[in-house]
């Protein structure tokens, strides 16, 4: 799998979103996972909660640091990846598939235009780390 799959959209805070109509599955990027190192705990958002884009919705903890997960898009949390609670290593193993974090019902479809494409994100992270 590519480091930054082309069918996803990306944020500056290193979240990804797989947008499908009014819904989006979200997670954190390969770059974020590598910055964090071995992840030891994930606190996914709560189902039913609504969040504005850019607000913290959960946390990821690694041996190095604790980081907030920010909502890449505004919307209501309709599903969360519960196995992550017991198997945080899923994020290290496969952050775009098994390691997804939540599914959102989007409240503002226009926002997705402001996210980065895979190429844009790859350029953006080149300057980081």
């Amino acid at each position, binding site marked *: 799998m590519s480091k930054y799959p082309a069918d996803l959209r990306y944020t500056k805070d290193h979240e990804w979103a797989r947008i499908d109509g009014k819904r989006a599955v979200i997670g954190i990027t390969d770059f974020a996972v590598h*910055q964090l190192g*071995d992840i*030891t*705990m994930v606190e996914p958002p709560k189902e039913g909660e609504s969040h504005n884009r850019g607000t913290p919705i959960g946390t990821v*903890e690694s*041996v*190095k*640091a604790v*980081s907030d997960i920010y909502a890449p898009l505004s919307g209501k949390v309709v599903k969360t990846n519960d196995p992550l609670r017991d198997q*945080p*290593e899923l994020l290290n193993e496969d952050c775009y598939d098994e390691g997804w974090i939540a599914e959102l019902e989007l409240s503002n479809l226009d926002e997705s235009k402001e996210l980065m494409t895979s190429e844009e994100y790859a350029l953006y992270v080149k300057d*980081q*780390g």
Partner: protein
Amino acid sequence: MTQTKSGLVETRHLLHHEPPIFEQGAAGRSGASLPTLDVPEVSASTLFGDLHRDAEPSLPEVSEVDVTRHFTRLSRWNYAIDIGMYPLGSCTMKYNPKVNERMARLPGFAGLHPAQAEQTLQGALELMYRLEQVLCEISGFARVTLQPAAGAHGELCGLMMIRAYHQSQGRFPRKVLIPDSAHGTNPASVTLNQMECVPLKTSADGLLSAETVRAAVAQHPGDIAGLMVTNPSTLGIFEEHLAEISEIIHQAGGLVYMDGANFNALLGKVRPGATGVDVMHINLHKTFTTPHGGGGPGSGPVGVVEKLIPFLPTPTVEHKDGVYHLNYNRPQSVGRLRSFFGNFGMHVRAYTYIREMGGVGLTQATEMAVLNAVYLRALLHEEFPPVSDKPSMHEYVTSDKKLKKETSVQTLDIAKRLIDYGFHPPTVYFPLVVPGALMIEPTETESKETLDQFASALLAIAKEAHSEPDRVKHAPHQTALRRLDETKAARQPRLRWMPQG
């Protein structure tokens, strides 16, 4: 430590492998000898009924020699400030002068009971009163409370006073601005006070800019409770724009809280209370040489400007007609924050240090702390470039950025390899705004020889990272235990000993 021709510390150890005490000794062995029973024996099962346990507890059966050797051997695995340099940035492990310990053990202090009558506590109250006075003089605040038990507790206390101040004026603004270079405890203190953090991004030079603060204030009109700022920041640099920033906050009706954890870089140079800061905590265990870490407890006095005095925790120590007394009659106070009078033993140690050093001595200590950090930066900057071009204060923050690009060695490997060279690693992966951070604080008491040895060790590791990276990546090699699996320890912690099988 002996110095070799290479400039490195030579280390030699005879360390025993040491199993848990539960796996030592033999059935029936005991370190205690009790006198013969000279009263009628009572049956425990009759006495305790169904609370009586069926089986004997499985306690270690060991002799006095077994126990003494076990713990003495374990203690030899340890590293301490009395063994070598402890370059932890942000967590400042300072030398603890032995005279402090002597003073704290004076029978008149050590033998006190905190519930004694006020008139029999006069010496202790006088010391607290004088410590408050001298901390006011040093920090530029109108009054100081000695109650908080540590830095984060001081933050909590400071924010409670900020909240009480706003509420006394019939308001309760909720937003507290916090730059991303702050200490991690700041947001927690805000949340505990039912307020909300507004994170601020620092500029490319690592400083908080007035424009950023102005923009954040404009986004929350009428709702600014205050700003929490660490100065010098966790990047070890001085917040140059703080005076202007304080003015912006004050104009918005907010108060300025300064996290004084790094006050040891400012003693005798800057009096924050006289430069626009309204509240600040001071860590006696970082700035004023009381023990830190396992040797604690900590102590985090909080200084305030005139208008916040009514809200200080109760009781305060007052002096009237030659008598010291505790004032509980403070209707606007946020209340008592600590049982009795705070960690009094730390007050004795800090006061001893301040009186011993005097104003000139404290200023020199500040200058030496900064000089030592700047010296290390000068020795190391080519292999370990500083993360900000601004001058370093008491600590020097660098990262693995250069080494990671050229080799496969990362910050964690550097930290582990330093142990083989006889040094405690510096703070790593903090502050969070710096990927792969190495945060080095030598403090004022380290000699030039020690600083040279430390720099030589880091430069040797940088060389090894190119020539034999595996040696660095599998470090430490000379410790009693090799590199531990930190991930497994975090994911599946074994918190107590369990019998095998």
